[in-house]
């Protein structure tokens, strides 16, 4: 899969962050919230500003900031190979929230 900028994404879904450009304040503010190389990012709403799910929390990001972030889509196969640290609770998916 070819890398692309987070700001160019129009399709919701799961992505993996490859890089956050620069070390200015804007990059810092992204990284502090978990938008940082290696993390998985779920795009919940595309557009400007966009809504992401990072580490279980929703984060609102404007296009200007999203342009700093390089991502690649996570497909079912790449997710299985790359995300080998499968969590113990994952099998319990759907068992919560009555």
């Amino acid at each position, binding site marked *: 899969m070819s890398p692309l900028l987070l700001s160019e994404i129009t399709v919701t879904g799961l992505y993996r962050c490859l890089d956050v450009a620069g070390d200015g304040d804007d990059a810092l503010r992204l990284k502090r919230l978990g938008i940082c190389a290696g993390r998985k990012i779920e795009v919940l709403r595309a557009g400007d500003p966009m809504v992401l799910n990072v580490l279980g929390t929703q984060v609102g990001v404007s296009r200007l900031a999203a342009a700093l972030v390089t991502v690649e889509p996570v497909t079912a196969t790449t997710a299985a190979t790359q995300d080998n640290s499968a969590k113990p*609770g994952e099998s319990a998916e759907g068992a*919560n929230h009555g």
Partner: protein
Amino acid sequence: MVDVLKKTATVVLVGNPNTGKTTLFNRLTGLRAKTANYPGITVDVRKGTIQLKGGPADLVDLPGMYSLNTASPEEQLAREVLLGEIPDTARPDAVVLVLDATQLERNLMLASEILDLKLPTIVVINLIDAAAALNIKIEPEKLAAELKCPVVLVSARKSSGLNELCNTIDSVLTQKLPLLLEQHTSCTMGCSGCTFSARFDWAEKVCNSTVERPLQTGCKVAKLDRLLTHPVIGVIAFLTVMLAVFYLIFSLASIPMDLVDGGFTQLGEFVGQLIPESVPNPALWFAGTASLSMLVFLASYWAAEIRWSLKNGLIAAAVSVFVATLPIDDFRSLLVDGVIGGIGGVLVFLPQICILFFFISLLEDTGYMARAAFVMERLMRFVGLPGKAFVPMLSAHACAIPGIMAARVIENWRDRLVTILVLPLLTCSARLPVYSMITALLFSDSPVKAAAVFVAAYVLGIAAALFSAWCLKKTILKGDTVPLVIELPAYRRPSFSGAFAIVVERAVNFVGTAGTAILLISVILWALATYPKMPESALPQNVAEQVATLRSEALLAGDPDSVLAEADRMVAQEALAYSCAGRVGRLLEPVFAPLGFDWKINVGVITSFAAREVVVSTLAIVYGIGEDAAEDKATLVETLRRQKRPDGSPVFTTATGMSLLVFFVLAMQCLPTQAVTKRETGSWKWAIFQLVYMTAMAYVAALITYQVISRS
């Protein structure tokens, strides 16, 4: 460190925003917190005391932070406290690190930074009840072993685990626990790339080995959330919420406002009657009034946190002696009109301010405010401000003061400053009496026109604020737009007691800073409008004759009181003209003449310098209908309409009225706001800048208005 409990130990609370840190603080200190400042820093922190077995300790609630790599003045303060970079302040004796049980992986990023500091640290896992509801299971022993420091599970909201937390803090302070943290090695050791990546990897590893959690969490309100963050529906929803809040503010606040207003009027009358007509015993009188004045100084210094120094003590003593030697009539007037009237004028807006704070705090607690900032981002971007600036701007439509305080949510200092500087342009409730006087004066025959002008005044305020913000961002506060990166926290039930605590704290804060300043300025303005006293002989010939006639008629008239009151009003009118304020009004005539103001309106502009609504009662006095009649709009408007210039043309033409309206929409004319601006920006520089640019803009706009309308 052994005698750490002999002096009071300092424990700091640290954590991400939205971790329930403040609720925990309130539980531990029992709502007896005080707002405190570190020397030279404008950011507020809350301080309280916790009772431990080894004795009391100071607990400081540091501002929420995402990382030691800071992005706001608040986070910077928290960082400096933790690193011991604050002058004359020791490093904290213990750190209580609050983590959100439902967001442990994210929160562990900050934990990894804090643990690297190797301060005595206790990790508190809060919101453990919420985590249990989401089937998240945390093993505290394993976590403690990983983090190499004590871990306590609490639910601040349900008050569970707090005793254990206090005991653990006590053990750490008295060094009963071995300092395992010495063995902690930073996860960024030997890491050359992005330290955040290393920390998040570590957080993920720790989380995987200590926490059992389902993969997906928190989708209960996902549908609602999709609507609230929708670009169009979200904005409509937000405006609806804020309109409802405003409706509540204005409807709920009217009762306490009337009570405050009536209470201070009655208090003034009561005190006025209490003071005898003549001094019974000069020595006793001197001692009594001097000590009363000293008492006022004592209270003001305490409220404004001014230290007693030789200079300040001498000022207080000198003023007190002077006050004690005032003639008794002047003393009565000073006490009733200057002091009591001045304090009442500030406190009357307190109910609105409190109710606004209460609702904003509740909305913030629920997690909704972050969504509001999110949806407003795109609209606010046009003027170069962040979406978060919208809530302060809406608040300022009730009163600029809570708006300026609410600007603290804006992380970027430059954006925050721009917002603070333009907020007083928005139409606050103190302007409404002025607007309604002028619209009644000009358009009493056409309610539609009156309403249109009212709306236009609001729009002018908003347009001026946005335009000024845009200009400031382009010129003196130039800087790149700070793009939005905001956590949208999970929705939570708000805490009413927490909101109440914030209201009390901010109200005390407001009365302390603004109250003292307005007391000072209202006494000064009182003096300007009273001195120099007009001797009977200085009364103009024709007025003196009229007054004498009225007084002699009073003896025969059926209603002598009203006739005498008429005479008194005429004297008061001349006395104001004779006073400093009157003279300055005449002096400023050439300055304000191009705006269509006569010297009497100038007097109104001067006396309303501290509080704009005062212009209504000043115009009532200066046009000779008496202060009490200002309440009765019909009389006031009738009298104003009859006013003639020396050449016989009416004073209040449409051009003059509109020019006065525009002037009051745009001019600063509010000292409490200036005091709060000074407090929030840390220097008088910005407060003065605000005064100068707003007054200049008001002058120019009023000038254009008058010249255009009077020529058309």
